[in-house]
């Protein structure tokens, strides 16, 4: 339950932090850390819930945007990057990059909480 709660909270707060600033892209690292402080889990689990939270949020947003856009831009960017023009791969990369940052931030949160206890 904690695990699911953490994932949902991570994604939700990350989305809100993205709305608050048009230039700061890594606000979600702070919110992911806060979620891990709030919903305490072992480091590994915290990492995973942070990772999945952003994988779902970024991957999901990218997938939604891409669908609305009929894949016009993703095909071009996936050739620039270079991902062989594969838009699904680009969506995955997007999710994984967000996920990694959130995962490590959440792991930090988990350690921070356990280090301040007893």
């Amino acid at each position, binding site marked *: 339950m904690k695990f699911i709660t953490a994932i949902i909270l991570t994604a939700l707060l990350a*989305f809100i932090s*993205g*709305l608050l600033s*048009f*230039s700061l*892209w*890594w606000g979600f*690292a702070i919110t992911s*850390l806060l979620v891990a402080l709030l919903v305490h889990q072992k*480091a590994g689990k915290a990492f995973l819930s942070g990772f999945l939270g952003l994988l779902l*949020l*970024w991957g999901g*947003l*990218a997938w939604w*945007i*891409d669908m*609305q*856009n*009929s894949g*016009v*831009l*993703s095909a*071009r*960017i996936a*050739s*620039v990057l270079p991902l062989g*023009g594969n838009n699904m791969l680009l969506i995955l*990369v*997007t999710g994984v*990059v*967000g996920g*990694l*940052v959130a995962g*490590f*931030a959440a*792991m*930090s949160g988990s*350690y*921070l909480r*356990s*280090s301040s206890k007893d």
Partner: protein
Amino acid sequence: MTVNDLKKKLLHLSLSFEFIFLPMRIVPFAVSAVVSAGLIFALNKQWGAIPPMGKFLSPQHGFWQNAEPSNQDFDAQLSFPDLKGKAEVYFDERLVPHVFAENEEDLYFIQGYLHAKFRLFQIDLQTKAAAGRASEIAGPKAVDYDKEQRRLGMVFAAENAMKEIEKDQASKKLFDAYTNGINAYIGNLKESELPVEYKLLNFKPEKWSNLRTALLLKMMAKMLSSGTENDLANTNAKAIFLPDELKKLYPQVHDSLVPIVPRGTVFEKPGIVPIQPLSADSLYFGKRDTVTAKEISKPDINNGSNNWVVAGSKTQSGAPILCNDPHLELSLPSIWYEMQLQTPTSNTYGVSLPGAPFIIIGFNDSIAWGVTNAQRDVKDYYEIKFKDKTKQEYWFNGYWEKTILKEEVIKVKGGADVKDTVAYTIFGPVMFDESFSNNLSNKRNLAVRWVAHDPSNEGMTFYKLNRAKNYDDYASAIQTFQCPGQNFVFASKGGDIAIWQQGKFPARWDRQGLYVMPGEDSSYMWQGFIPQPENPHAKNPERGFLESTNQRPADSTYPYFIPGSYITPRGIAVEKYLSGMTGITPKDMMTLHGNYFNTLAEDALPLLLKYVQVEKLDAKAKGYLDIVRNWNLMASPDSKGQTIYQCWWDSLEMGIWKDELTKVEPQAPWPEEQTTMELLKKDSALSFIDNINTAEKETLFDVVTTALQKATADLAKKEAEGKLEWAKFKNPTVYHLLKDALPAFARKGLNVGGNGNIINAVTHSHGPSWRMIVHLTNQTEAYGVYPGGQSGNPGSRFYDDYVDKWVEGQYHKLWFMREGDKTDKNVKWIMKFNKGN
């Protein structure tokens, strides 16, 4: 020891353990915190050409934000304090804005706003490049380009133009409004909304100014009037050829020329007769040393165009039809942005140049106009003698005159600033000197005199043309247009057709300015300009049509020496078709725009076939010969004959000229293909046919045969790759503005034929950038298409949606919207502008 003591001791121990282990527990936190911070840092930073990936990939900040939904809603309610009244913009289904404003200032404010909204990266990049600031974006590889822009005096030219723009209050108001419109958009732009190119290259747009508008217009001036001279290479040709040979290789008037002003036109006595300096034979014509300077970014010679107009006497409807297709480097986004601009006193439709106000090519309720490039030489070089290395003084008319030294600082992305000093003389800036000779050895100081440096306000010509009602309005609108010289074609609903080659053109003595000129006194300076009324023009000719296709404007009876980089073949073809046509409809004109007839091959191919020695060819070459023998002279996309002919001809030119032209470095200019064809037709024993590097004496039979055999090697390679068909061979491509840096944003492999010397002038990446046909009937009937789309955003479905139509030779019917059409079903989105904060 009591139990209590023990407890105390243990507690103390555990506390000290706590003391020791607390930091140990922080370690994993510290490690993961450092990893997180490091990850964010790495993803927030640009690595070489890789943009900051975290920001770039963030769906709420990065490129995903540029992925415009297919059903994007462009409706908006906007208010700006700079506006005077209310205005509406009606977008049709192609995203063409139809702007209805209450006054002119609001009209151009909105034009600026829309240019910024749909083409921000384009206008920002182009004006930065014009000002010699490309290195700020592209890094060290652009430094020499930037130096050249500055040394050519691009900013100097733009500053002079801006002074002229701002001198006249009426003009300043319009340009100010346009600038404010662009800045209104930039000012409200969120970082997440930046065009995707900014996110890829990691920089931000800069505020607009009237100077930047002037820079954009000077970029056009460079594109169209800087590459039309060949003075540096000509000077080297003078070192290896005798005067008679020079005249033969680089003739001023081709035998086959069909000039813009119909042959037989009688010209007035010239208003100015320039005098050749007494020293010309010794110091100028007779001087035979080479110059090793070479321009880095010399504009494409094919920057030309077609335009023509047919009078009512030749059309089915009895109303004139005007056609135009400017040939430029094709790009995404396009150099053009289509729009309609209306106020209670004016109503104009056509294409605008993002970065500048007004409609540049188009029509209104009374007239239509179009432009082609004049191709005239309006730029000369003078050799300067500096007193010393400081470049502070130069020898002029017997004195050491002071230069004006301009310190240039070029900011370089990922590198240190580069400094350069440019000396300005009475002629203009010293473009080449010791510190800038493109690493070539002989360091002559060359100042450049270019008409684009002179104060002028070309924009106002378009302002007036947008509102012209008849021939007189048109003629007075173009009178002040100086540079780049253009052929303004015109038609009115009143039934008039006309053409003027308009520009500020130096009056030259014979061969003045073909070569680098002495710059130690005033005797070689331009003595004046051709009086404007004497510019070549024609109105309502009996034959009922006029055309211009970058050829020489007049035959040899025109009383001035007018060198330039003229292109002869297309004029011959257009003239041939138009003179044979009657009962013309817009549909006929579309067919003519798309015409693939290779008029040069019509003359050249019989020569090739006459002199080829079949028995000396191998089987493969014989096969190609058979194909080209049966070729219908059309450069259509699937034509193999066109590919074989072109490769054969290019190989022949190489065989004839290369040995002579490369005796100097940089090499002498290649004679035009028209010249080569005419020379061979007249003299099959032309002395240049012989290869001077071999012992034998080659004949025309030899070189024509060798040329085909040599071309066969390349052709066979292409054939093996399945690229023998003309369109596959030349691979027509519309590149993104950043060209090879962003191949994924280009449209490649387009199935179009044509060539630079063919009416449908599509080369690899160059060609008809806008095709327009205006039928001046009561209810104007107009058609147009350009190879791009209204949006500069590669994430929009409007980025390249016209390309396929353009490839197929189809047109959009242009919707000249009326006041009463505001509820018409063609209106898809409405943007409302109000005065307010």
